[in-house]
């Protein structure tokens, strides 16, 4: 099998150029989809039979929560690839993804709290779903702190990657917490087998928002990986040639 393209992709100069070309094609559609999704969710979708207008926070909460887990999966996958194949670029991707994931996790927790007060009657409960999501935030922060605490980039990459792999176990715990244990948080609406338990006029803005948020993550990641490559390769000859172009 010809793996030249793979090796080429893993080389910082090549990835730097591809990421630069890709970023606008991810960023602009992301912005458009988020604007469409927000209009659909906040204006076009009907109010909920139980929660009234308040359920609309779902359109920010659910995509953020989804991204908080997708980003972690990306981070852990990149860390695993970096550890096994010693690909420095993979570690750069993991490090670039971590702050994005931490912010999505924070937004999921904050919007969930704002939603919980009027609907459940409380800002926060220590049920399995909420606690596992809070642990996810600590995993992101721990990953960043551990990476920052070690001066040598290679050693920092490997140490943080091991932590990232250990934290992977939290992802199934977050997803299945609402089925394994009695929780105050309700079960999944669309990521369950069978028919989504939401009518189509409320569902489509959610799907648009999910796609928009995912593209937004991809756009942020390409730009952040570029920045990380600039930092790591600051003395490289190719970079001087690239920037002089």
């Amino acid at each position, binding site marked *: 099998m010809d793996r030249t393209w793979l090796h080429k992709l893993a080389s910082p100069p090549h990835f730097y150029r591809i990421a630069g070309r890709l970023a606008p094609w991810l960023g602009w559609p992301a912005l458009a989809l988020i604007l469409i999704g927000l209009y659909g969710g906040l204006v076009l979708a009907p109010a909920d039979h139980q929660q009234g207008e308040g359920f609309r926070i779902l359109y920010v909460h659910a995509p953020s929560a989804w991204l908080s887990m997708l980003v972690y999966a990306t981070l852990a996958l990149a860390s695993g690839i970096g550890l096994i194949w010693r690909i420095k670029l993979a570690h750069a991707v993991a490090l670039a993804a971590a702050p994005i994931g931490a912010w999505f996790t924070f937004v999921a927790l904050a919007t969930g709290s704002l939603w919980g007060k009027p609907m459940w009657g409380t800002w926060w409960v220590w049920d399995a779903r909420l606690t596992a999501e809070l642990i996810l935030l600590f995993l992101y922060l721990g990953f960043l702190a551990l990476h920052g605490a070690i001066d040598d980039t290679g050693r920092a990459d490997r140490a943080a990657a091991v932590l990232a792999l250990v934290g992977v176990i939290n992802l199934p715990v977050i997803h299945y917490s609402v089925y394994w244990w009695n929780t*105050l948080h309700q079960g999944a609406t669309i990521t369950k087998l069978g028919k989504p338990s939401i009518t189509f006029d409320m569902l489509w803005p959610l799907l648009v928002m999910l796609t928009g948020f995912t593209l937004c993550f991809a756009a942020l990641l390409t730009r952040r990986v570029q920045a990380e490559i600039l930092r790591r390769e600051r003395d490289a000859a190719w970079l001087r040639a690239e920037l002089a172009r």
Partner: protein
Amino acid sequence: MTPRHRRMVGVAAILAGVGAAALLARLAFEENLLYFFSPSQIAAGEAPVERKFRVGGLVTPGSVQRDPGSLTVRFVVTDNRHSIPVRYSGVLPDLFKEGKGVVANGRLDGQGGFVAEEVLAKHDENYMPPEVADSMHPPQPGGGGG
């Protein structure tokens, strides 16, 4: 080849070890991770008698009685097999409705009832406009309706 395979085994070992640890932790802390007990679990004597805990279930339709002149409210929480009467003084969340989910924090009163200090509403994962909800469950007079 060999060092890379060794690293692959290392990564697999981390994942397997953490997975096993999580499984054991889940078995060991099964009860502590329960946010609430169902009326059936209380009937079976699984809930702690001497300390506070939470009971969760559905509010039995027609069971809500408000004390005129005070915030005290009585209702029955059921899981459709067993049920338990709950007494509570305070403000109820907006989503508190007969036939809907509820989680009450408090303790047993020793006479088969439950005294709640806090009542939270537990809503389900179904979202639909009121018209759709009405067509599925026509609103009943006096009941919680859709």
